């Protein structure tokens, strides 16, 4: 049995009278990429926000790296949060800072590095995330969508987190950029030993890099497991999702990619 880094048990999230999650269980194991899929409005982003502690769940137990974020003192919580990296859907780069400053900010704030040292490390993270060096001194507004994602990834990786949360990383990227981003995440996972919690709609991403897939539906995790197991599950939504025209195309592309290797 592999070690779990995230353990969600009996999670309940409600907005007014609308229940988004009811008694939801989910695990993330060390070193794996877990793809979380589900229709619009099934609470994928809410789940992510609950796990990283941005939203207090109505009930339930969430353990991140063996600790409950909510029960920690502010200081311990901050220490724990440094071991998590989050890539938000639209990057959430600070607009008043350059890309380099964005990436160096957590290093300066948390690891006590001086600015030149922090910037040197930040440059490394930017190259790791696949950004050209001349992008470092640009402001987020001057970057293309794909570069914003890469810069945000560099910032999420700044403190060498153990768990990386990605909220629709390939949304809004062109297929070439999306495929490159998938490869990048797979490389980083192998190189840095990351555990990745990946919320996505992108079937190609699922086939390309996910070790396991969890399907959210009916306020619960309907099924979680290897992709072929999940795809074979007898559920109308899952059948539509994985065996609809897009699902078939993505599966075929994945088979071809595997064959050509």
């Amino acid at each position, binding site marked *: 049995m592999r070690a779990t880094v995230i353990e969600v048990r009996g999670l309940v999230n409600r907005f007014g009278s609308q229940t988004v999650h009811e008694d939801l269980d989910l695990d993330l194991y060390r070193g794996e990429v877990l793809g979380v899929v589900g229709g619009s409005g099934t609470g994928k982003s809410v789940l992510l926000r609950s796990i990283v502690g941005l939203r207090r769940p109505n009930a339930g137990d969430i353990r991140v790296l063996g600790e409950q974020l909510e029960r920690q003192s502010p200081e311990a919580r901050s220490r724990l949060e440094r071991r998590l990296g989050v890539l938000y859907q639209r990057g959430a780069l600070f607009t008043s800072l350059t890309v380099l400053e964005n990436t160096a900010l957590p290093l300066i704030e948390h*690891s006590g590095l001086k600015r030149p040292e922090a910037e040197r*490390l930040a*440059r490394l993270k930017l190259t790791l995330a696949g950004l050209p060096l001349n992008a470092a001194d640009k402001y*987020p*507004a001057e970057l293309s969508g794909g570069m914003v994602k890469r810069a945000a990834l560099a910032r999420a990786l700044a403190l*060498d987190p153990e768990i990386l949360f990605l909220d629709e990383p390939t949304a809004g990227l062109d297929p070439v950029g999306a495929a490159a981003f998938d490869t990048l995440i797979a490389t*980083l996972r192998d190189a840095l030993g990351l555990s990745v919690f990946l919320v996505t709609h992108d079937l190609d991403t699922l086939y390309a890099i996910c070790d396991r897939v969890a399907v959210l539906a009916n306020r619960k995790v309907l099924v979680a497991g290897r992709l072929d197991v999940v795809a074979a599950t007898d559920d109308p939504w899952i059948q539509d999702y994985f065996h609809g025209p897009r699902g078939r195309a993505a599966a075929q592309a994945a088979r071809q990619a595997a064959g050509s290797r």
Partner: protein
Amino acid sequence: MIPRADIRYDEDTASLRLGGAWTLAHYARLQPGLARWKEASTRARQVDMSELQGLDTAGAALLAELFGADRLLELADRAEGLSEERRALLRTVARALQGAAPGEVPPRRSTLLELLEQIGRAVEALWRHAVGLLGFIGLVLTTMASVLLRPRRWRMTSLVAHLEQSGLDAVPIVALLTFMVGAVVAFLGATVLADFGATQYTVDLVAYSFLREFGVLLTAILLAGRTASAFTAQIGSMKANEELDAIRTLGLDPLELLVLPRVFALLIALPLLTFIAMLSGMLGGAVVCMLSLDIPPSLYLSIIQNGVDVRHFLVGMAKAPIFAFLIAVIGCLEGFRVSGSAQSVGEHTTSSVVQSIFMVILVDALAALFLMEMGW
């Protein structure tokens, strides 16, 4: 507790031993001492990393600095006692650094040169701003002319909504503010004029100042702060959200849709508010006159009726539409200048308030000079 990172060189076997945790936590301490080992690292024929207890990208970056990216790539395959994950990490970092020359900072230029450059940029920006404003005014006027003759293209709903927001909703603050300023002016007049035994002229002072200047100027400045900023923020966030592009691609004209209703709303609202401001300012003066100068309201009114010409009222009112146009146009133009980010919305909102207040006061001063010379 993970032992601190250390590094040893064995002369006999020419091997470099790395141990402990090479992580971000130790980066600040390790990095300065690294230069001492540079020479040993080039001589070392063997590198032993088997005692390495922790390694992350920060540590890998240090190793890259120590050995150079090329040699690190080689070491990642060759070094003893490394787990497969660490080899992968070293390889990734080394490859990332290979292409990239270590951060070269462009040399700083002299302060004087930078100062001159700043001044040059500022002057150029000012010039472009002025040209842009004139161009925009022209654009608004032509659109206005083409729309004015075709009532079907008037945006009544939008116009009424803006009238309410920038006109009706501003009545209480305009009235209160001018009432207080009117009282203050009357107090000042009473104090100064009492020395000459001419306290009665306080009435004239208040009436003249509010009819000619204060009524319209105070209202314009208030609306510049209240409405120009609102226009900029509204249009600016629409621009940031690509709504302006959507308007254009739908074959509509943002000038007609967004700017004209706002301009017309202010053209109507500002004169009305100015009128309220004049009344309320003189009311403030009347209250002070009644309470501290024993001039009853009936006398106050008759002094104004007999002593103050209607042309002063007209002079004040004539400026209102000009100010209204300037405020609306500057507010809208700054909205169009917003570029995408939230920060830019803030910058341009500030800029629109500053610019419109500046323009209002500048035009008012020029008008005062002109009118004085003309004897109006």
